C-alpha cells in the first residue's frame, strides 16, 4: 500500500514534466522573432506577432505593482509593528477573505468601479484589478518577514535613541528586504498569468494602445482568444504565447524560491 503512494507522487511529478515538455516542444517551435516585434496580423493572414500584448502585459502589471504593493507593504508593516490586537485581527481576517475571492469576481469589481464610470475598457482598470489581487499576499509576506527579524536588532537600535520609524526604515525593513522583495516577485508571477479579471477590464486590442486609458492587449487574454479561435495559425501563436508566459512565470517562481531558501531569515510562505 505504501508503494502505491509513491506511484501517486511520481504520477503527479510526471504530469508537470509532461506539461513542461509539451509546452516547450510546441511553443518553442512556434516561436519566431516576429512574435516579439510585430502586431497581430489581420484575420485570414498568416504571421504577425504579439508585440502589443507583451508591452500591454508589462503596462498592466506595472500598474498593478504601483497600486497593490504600497498598500500591501504598508499594511504588512501595520500588522507586524503597529496594530493593536483587535486591529490586527480584523485586518488579518479581511485580508484572508480578500485572498479567497475568485479572480473573476475581482474583475467584476474593477469593472463596476472603473469601467462602468469611465464607459470604456482601459489598462488602468486591468491594473487595478490585478493590484487588488496582489494586496493580500503582499500584506502577509511583508508581515511574516518583518516578524522574522530578531527583536535584538530592534532593541539595539532603539537603545541608541532612534525613534521607532527610523528603526523600521533603517534596520528592520532592510534586514527583511530579501524576503519582502521575493514575496512581491512571487506575487507578481501569480497575477502575471491571470486572465479572468482582464477580460472585461483591460479587454483586448489588436493594435498598439497609447497611455493607460485605452483597451489594452495582454498575453493571457491573447492566449485565450487565439486558443478558442478556429484558425490553425492562431493556435500556433497561442502555443508560442503560452510558452513565453510560462517561462516568465516559472522563472520568477524558481528565482524567488531559491533566494528564499538561501535567505538567513526563513519566514516561510
Amino acid at each position, binding site marked *: *500500500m*505504501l508503494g*502505491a*503512494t*509513491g506511484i*501517486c*507522487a511520481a*504520477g*503527479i*511529478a510526471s*504530469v*508537470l514534466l509532461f*506539461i513542461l515538455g509539451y*509546452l516547450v516542444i510546441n511553443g518553442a517551435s512556434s516561436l519566431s522573432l516576429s512574435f516579439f516585434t510585430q502586431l497581430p496580423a489581420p484575420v485570414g493572414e498568416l504571421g504577425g506577432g504579439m508585440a502589443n500584448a507583451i508591452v500591454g502585459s508589462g503596462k498592466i502589471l506595472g500598474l498593478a505593482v504601483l497600486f497593490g504593493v*504600497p*498598500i500591501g507593504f*504598508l*499594511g504588512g508593516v*501595520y*500588522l507586524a509593528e*503597529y*496594530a493593536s490586537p483587535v*486591529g490586527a485581527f*480584523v*485586518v488579518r481576517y*479581511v485580508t*484572508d*477573505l*480578500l485572498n*479567497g*475571492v*475568485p479572480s*473573476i*469576481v*475581482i474583475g*467584476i*469589481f474593477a469593472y*463596476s*468601479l472603473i469601467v*462602468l464610470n469611465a464607459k470604456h475598457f482601459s489598462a488602468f482598470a486591468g491594473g487595478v484589478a490585478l493590484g487588488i489581487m496582489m494586496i493580500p499576499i503582499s*500584506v502577509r509576506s511583508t508581515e511574516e518577514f518583518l516578524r522574522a527579524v530578531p527583536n535584538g536588532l530592534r532593541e539595539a537600535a532603539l537603545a541608541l535613541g532612534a*525613534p521607532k*520609524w*527610523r528603526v523600521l526604515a533603517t534596520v528592520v525593513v532592510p534586514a527583511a528586504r530579501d524576503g519582502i522583495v521575493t514575496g512581491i516577485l512571487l506575487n507578481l508571477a501569480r497575477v502575471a*498569468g*491571470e*486572465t*479572468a479579471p482582464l477580460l*472585461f477590464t483591460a479587454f483586448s486590442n489588436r493594435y498598439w494602445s497609447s497611455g493607460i486609458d485605452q483597451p489594452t492587449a495582454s498575453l*493571457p487574454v491573447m492566449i*485565450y482568444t487565439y*486558443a*478558442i479561435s478556429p484558425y490553425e495559425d492562431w*493556435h500556433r501563436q*497561442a502555443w508560442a504565447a*503560452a510558452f513565453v508566459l*510560462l517561462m516568465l*512565470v*516559472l522563472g520568477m517562481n*524558481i528565482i524567488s524560491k531559491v533566494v528564499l531558501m538561501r535567505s538567513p531569515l526563513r519566514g516561510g510562505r
Partner: protein
Amino acid sequence: MAARVQAFTRRLLSGDEVTRFIVTLAGLAILTVTAALVFELWSNSNLAREKFGWGFLTGSTWDPNAGEFGALPFIVGTATTSLISLVIAVPAGVGAAIFLAELAPRRVSDALTFCIELLAAVPSVVYGLLGVFVLVPIMKSVVEPPLRAVLGWTPLFSGPFYGVSVLTAGVVLAVMILPFIVSVSRQVLIAVPVEQREAALALGATRWETTWRVVLPFAKRGIYGSIFLALARALGETMAVTMVIGNSTQLKASLFAPGYSIAAVIANEFTEATDDLYLHALIQLGLVLFAVTIIINGLARLLVAGTTRRSDAVA
C-alpha cells in the same frame, strides 16, 4: 495626563505618530477595498434580486433574449465539476503527500515538492490551452470508450461525447488543485509528532498500519482543510473550465454532455450583456460565487489553523 501628552508630542515630533498614521491608513484601505467590493457586487445586482428573488438560484432557464435568468444550470455545473475534481485529486493528492512525508528521503521529498508546487504556478489559461488541444483528444480516444463500456448503462455516462464536457472540465480542475492538496497535506503530515509513529511501531504495527491508523487520523483535520482550500479554488476557477466545459445552458444528467459553470458564464457573457437586467443577473452570479468561496475558505482556514496550533503545542 500631562506625561502622556508630553510623550505623544515627543513621538509626534520625532515622526513616529506620522508613520503610525500612514500604516494605519494602509490597513484601513484594505478594509475599504473589501467593503467596496461587497457593496459594488450587492448594489449592481439589485435588479436581478428584485425580479427573481430566491427563485434566481432554482430557475433552470437562462435566456437573455427573453429576459429570463435562472442560475441552476451554472450552479449544478460548478458543483459537478468541483466534485469530479475532488474525486480524482483527493486520493491521488493525499497519497502523494503520504509518500512525500512518510516514505521519501528528505532530499527526494523536497525536490518532488518543489516540482509539484511549480504546477500551482502554471497560469489557468495555459491549463485551458492544454485542455483544449491535448486533454480533449485523450478523453475522446483513451478515457471515454472504457468508461462507456463499463458504466455506459448509468445515465451519468451515456449520450454522445464531443470531447468538451463536464467530465473534461473536472479532470482539468483535478490537475489544477492537486498541488494545493499535496503541499498542505504534506505539511500537516510532517507536523505529526514522531512519538506517535514510534509508539505505534513499538506496539508492532507495520509502516502502513502506523500511517493508516495513527498518522492519518492525527492529521485528519488539516487534510480536510487542504481539501476545502482546493475546493474553494476549484469553485472559482474560470479560464481552464470555460475552455473545455462546452458552454451549454442545458441541464443534462450525463457527465459526457457539455455544461456550464458560474465563473465560465460570467467570463463568456459579461461583455455581451446589453441591458441592465442581464448585467445585474451576471453580477448576481458573481455574488453567489463570492459567498460560496468565502464560506468554504473560512472553513478551510479554521481547520488548517487548528491543526498547526495543536501540533505546535504537542511539539
